[in-house]
């Protein structure tokens, strides 16, 4: 592998283990929603670094722009106005790939190496191997990947794997003016989050907490939320995200079993032919009266 600093741990549609000897540290992006001012510098930096540009859209009565993630917008500030404790709260959440430890996209992908998970935790799409089937979209519990209308390839946040590979932080982190976004080892990010959560609790946000959902094995993008008990307030952040059981059944043990059953049917036919033999018309059948 060319990029040794990004050892590949798992690869889509590959049934043997990746290189596992080296033990690089796991990285994480921490998004402190309570510090975010909604300036969208991260959105701009993302497009700048990754050389993608969103089309100019229309205003639909919200700061949210564009309206949704697209093949060009890999991160998006989602703006929600909610009433909590008789207060109007403006909850702004930077949405994008969560870089799950157990990625549903990678599980669903049928094309070898189109989705890769580095040992540092980053989940990356290799568009040159993408066949455009959209299975990753079915696999994702966060509704993140977007298929391009131009090339039928799927795009999403790379956690700036190219920058991380050479020791830089992701572009969005670099651009954030309030340090709502921080990047480092997952352990350090958890420690940092714990300090922030303690402060928030002191300030009266008794349900403040870290969003690192266990249902997908934890994530390499984590949130500090003031209302960690109600993540859905933040523009529908999933409370207990999990790979859909339909995807798990579809991509689990059933397919090897189905292949074995079919191979068994063919083998059964062959052994029947050898063991019992064909059913032939004898001459006496030919002559006898029906």
């Amino acid at each position, binding site marked *: 592998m060319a990029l040794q600093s990004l050892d590949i741990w798992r690869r889509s*549609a*590959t*049934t043997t283990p990746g290189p596992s000897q080296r033990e690089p540290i796991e990285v994480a992006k921490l998004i402190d929603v309570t510090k975010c001012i909604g300036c969208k510098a991260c959105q701009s930096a993302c497009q700048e670094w990754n050389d993608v540009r969103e089309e100019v859209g229309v205003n639909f009565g919200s700061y949210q722009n564009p309206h949704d993630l697209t093949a060009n917008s890999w991160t998006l500030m989602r703006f929600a106005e909610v009433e909590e404790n008789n207060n109007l709260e403006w909850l702004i959440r930077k949405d994008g790939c969560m870089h799950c430890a157990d990625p549903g996209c990678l599980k669903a992908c*049928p*094309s*070898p190496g189109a989705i890769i998970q580095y040992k540092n935790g980053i989940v990356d799409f290799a568009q040159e*191997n*993408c*066949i*455009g*089937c*959209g*299975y990753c*979209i*079915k696999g994702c519990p966060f*509704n993140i990947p977007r*298929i391009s*209308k131009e090339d*039928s390839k799927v795009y999403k946040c790379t956690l700036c794997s190219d920058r991380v590979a050479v020791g830089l932080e992701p572009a969005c982190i670099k651009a954030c003016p309030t340090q709502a976004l921080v990047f480092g080892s997952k352990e350090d990010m958890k420690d940092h989050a714990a300090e922030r959560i303690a402060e928030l609790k002191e300030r009266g946000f008794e349900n403040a907490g870290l969003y690192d959902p266990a249902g997908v094995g934890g994530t390499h993008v984590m949130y500090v939320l003031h209302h960690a008990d109600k993540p859905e307030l933040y523009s529908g952040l999933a409370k207990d995200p999990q790979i*859909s059981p*339909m*995807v798990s*059944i*579809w991509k689990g043990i*059933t*397919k*090897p079993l*189905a*292949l074995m*059953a*079919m191979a068994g*049917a*063919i083998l059964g*036919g062959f052994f*029947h*032919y050898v063991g*019992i*033999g*064909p*059913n*032939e*018309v*004898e*001459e006496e*059948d*030919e*002559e*006898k009266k*029906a």
Partner: protein
Amino acid sequence: MSAHNDPFIQRYNTQERLNHWFTAIAFILLILSGFSLFHPSLFWLTNLFGGGPWTRILHPYIGVVMFVSFSALALRFWHHNFLSKNDIQWLKQIPDVIQNHEEKLPEVDRYNAGQKLLFWSMVITIPTLFVTGIIIWQPWFTPYFPRNVDRFAVLLHAFFAFVMSTGIIVHVYAAIWVKGTIRAMIRGTVARGWVKKHHPGWYKRIEQGQDH
């Protein structure tokens, strides 16, 4: 045609044979392209279609062709495939079927119960594969369906592909097993003795001039 001394009896006319083989060719292309995405161990089959993206692009169009072709085939053979009392008894005696003890089986007409069940299994699986295939057809239709419908469709598609393929394995083996059968679909005719032995009920009707 049904003269008593004619050694062969017509079983399928030209249109039926062409319809069958057109469906079969589409089926083979679908199996090869579909199974290439079924499990990683078969991904190499995408090479037969010009790579992964081409396999993904071509498979659904071939699917539509097969669905149309199979629909015509199903309409042609529909009325031959209703199960009778004899068929139920035949199914209970599957061990005799497998051991070639045909003399112990109840009288079979134009089709035996196994052939009829295969027909109905295709009538169920192929339209289901068509509908679920439309739902997961990127980029044309998938974006119009809710994510969970999409997930359910892709699961069903894989499951019914398995059922259909297993059925066709049985179908192909039966044609190899029962000698003299393949020429029914190639030449359109079968030997008189073949009909007497495997389809005595149909033979009686031919003799009485009720069929053909």
